[in-house]
């Protein structure tokens, strides 16, 4: 970490994969040898990726900390910074990375539980980091169910990994899209509806949700109905973030700095936030 | 003024008249100074005063907006709006202390290649007298 907290480390883009028309995954490697070796992070943490001269924005780390030497971020084209990232960057370019920031998922506490991953669209990125970490030490965890929703089949990200997830031990993958096209064979419908069909069992299970707020809003009651305790429902709060270390004030919800005290919260904590999220 | 000062002038040329006029000046081999960086716009009415302001504040030495003569406009009223808009902008820039020679406007039709050359060389002379734009450095 630099003495000046605003200074990024430089990273080279090794590989860019186009997931969907507006989502790209960037594989980055730190230029500085020492940083590359001891850059440690937890799944669910995020970094501030800056295209120097254009802008900076927070992105969760989609790669798993168990696979060393590189980090991956999946970026959807939304605002000024992401537009610059999508239009200007090619393989070999250099970007700035600040971080890792945020509290990340508490993997230790999840050990020994069944895991229910619920992802919506680009929300699969932070979950992929956690998922690959659990698959890399598979024996510590119970049954894994993955429910991944998207608007249309071409909005599904990480299609190339569905194979390995499907074949992993005691793991089931369920895909659902809001509106299907002719080539679509799996479920159709929003994630809460798909959840009702799958009916995952809730005892000794932890549900991890990530996706657009509208999806979280309608999925939470379904999970509560199924018997999930609020402490066992973990989600990430989406807020505007700029500094990433709890000072600039953009991400405040009530007295909490989402970037430093979050972005991962369990539902019991979120209920205590008076401000509606 | 040091002699080798080559002013940077940004020219917003309306596509139907001035751009064609400049093109005619080129094709009929009329020689004129090459300080104008031309930006082609559909009509002089398309030029937002913010473009002119941004050019001057970012350090351009001069800005020239050139369009069709009155009632020659391809869109029939574009240059009317431009005329009114830039009459006010010129007064504001002058009032705030930006040298009024730095922003000029001209009507050049598609057949007036020589007039275009005259306008450009006239402007380059004036900007050379006005000197480089160091106000916002």
């Amino acid at each position, binding site marked *: 970490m630099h003495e000046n907290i605003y200074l990024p480390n430089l990273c080279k883009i090794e590989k860019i994969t186009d997931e969907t028309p507006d989502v790209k995954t960037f594989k980055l490697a730190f230029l500085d040898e020492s940083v590359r070796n001891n850059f440690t992070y937890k799944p669910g943490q995020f970094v501030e990726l800056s295209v120097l001269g254009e*802008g900076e924005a927070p992105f969760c780390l989609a790669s798993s900390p168990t696979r060393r030497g590189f980090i991956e971020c999946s970026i959807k084209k939304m*605002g*000024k910074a992401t*537009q610059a990232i999508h239009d200007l960057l090619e393989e070999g370019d250099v970007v700035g990375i600040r971080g890792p920031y945020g509290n990340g998922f508490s993997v230790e506490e999840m050990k020994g539980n069944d895991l229910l991953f619920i992802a919506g669209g680009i929300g699969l990125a932070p979950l992929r980091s956690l998922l690959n970490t659990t698959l890399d030490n598979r024996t510590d965890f119970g049954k894994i169910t993955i429910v991944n929703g998207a608007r249309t089949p071409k909005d599904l990200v990480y299609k190339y990994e569905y194979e390995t997830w499907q074949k992993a031990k005691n793991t089931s993958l369920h895909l659902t899209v809001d509106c299907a096209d002719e080539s679509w064979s799996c479920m159709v419908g929003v994630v809460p509806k798909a959840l009702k069909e799958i009916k995952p069992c809730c005892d000794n299970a932890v549900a991890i949700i990530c996706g657009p707020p509208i999806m979280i809003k309608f999925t939470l009651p379904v999970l509560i109905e199924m018997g999930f305790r609020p402490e066992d429902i973990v989600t990430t709060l989406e807020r505007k973030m700029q500094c990433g270390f709890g000072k600039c004030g953009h991400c405040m919800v009530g007295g909490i700095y989402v970037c430093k005290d979050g972005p991962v919260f369990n539902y019991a904590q979120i209920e205590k936030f008076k401000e509606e999220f | 003024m040091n002699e080798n000062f080559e002013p940077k002038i940004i020219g917003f040329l309306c596509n139907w008249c001035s751009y064609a006029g400049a093109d005619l000046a080129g094709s009929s081999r009329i020689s004129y100074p090459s300080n104008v960086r031309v930006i082609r716009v559909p009509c002089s009415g398309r030029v937002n*005063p*913010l473009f002119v*302001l*941004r050019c001057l*504040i*970012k350090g351009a030495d001069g800005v020239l907006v050139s369009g069709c003569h*009155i009632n020659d406009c391809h869109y029939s*009223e574009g240059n*009317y*709006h431009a*005329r*009114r*808009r*830039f*009459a*006010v*902008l*010129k*007064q*504001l*820039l*002058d*009032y*705030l*202390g*930006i*040298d*009024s020679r730095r922003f*000029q*406007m*001209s*009507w050049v039709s598609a057949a007036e290649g020589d007039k275009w050359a005259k*306008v450009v060389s*006239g402007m380059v002379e004036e900007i050379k007298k006005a000197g480089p734009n160091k*106000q*916002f450095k």
Partner: protein
Amino acid sequence: MIKKLQEEVKKLLAEKKVNMVIGYARAGDAINAIPYFIANPEECGALIWDKTCIYNLTNYLIDMRNKKVGIIVKGCDVRSVVCLIQENQIKKENVIVIGLQCAGVFDKKGAELGAVGRERAAKCKSCNVHTPPLFDILIEDKEMNQKVLQQEDSYKEIREIENKSPEERFDYWKKELSKCIKCYACRQVCPLCYCPVCVADQTMPQWFSRSLSLEGNFAWNTVRAFHLAGRCIDCGECERVCPMGIPLRKINKKLEKEVKELFGHESGVDAEKKPLFSTFSKDDPEEFIK
């Protein structure tokens, strides 16, 4: 005068003609006036009207576009209501204008100290709309009619600056505008600054620097003034609220003078007239065009 004002407002609210009236009330410190929003008729007692009522309340009409609202305005303020109608931002049938005859209000210092006999605001010295040009209900001011309200030449200071040399002018404005801290109070208080995303906030493209460099400050204040050319009604609020005391009115008044000389256009006088830059005339001056 206040009695009549309170009765009119109570009548309006009682008859449900409007569901809210915006007026002035006394602040907690019993000196200043503050904007006051009344929904039920009983609260009309709090309404006041005196020299400390300096705000231009038409700014609040923008966020209440689809509600029926009554608004209490002075002569200079009502011109911004006319402008807003001209620019189709508010519909006349939604707004009931309660005009007040005004003999002039305090300047910012006077309003804060509530001192009697304090200097009248600069805009009032050259005011020619003591009786609002447009109103649905008029509240007369009996004593005002006798007073002889002299009118100063309002462009005196503008001419002073015009007579300076360009370098002097640039130095003057450079010193003034470098004080700007970009709190955007001048934009937020102005009734005619209602763009959903202001040019200063846009990021795609980002027109000019957000930093407090000379480049950023100069660009912001120039664009703000230009966007008000031919629209500014000289209510003086931007200059009043500027915490750094930048004489913003001097830029707006210059444009008001130019617009009157060049095109004979006066803002906020006649609701049917089209705004300055959305129309043109065949014989606009063009000697500056080569």
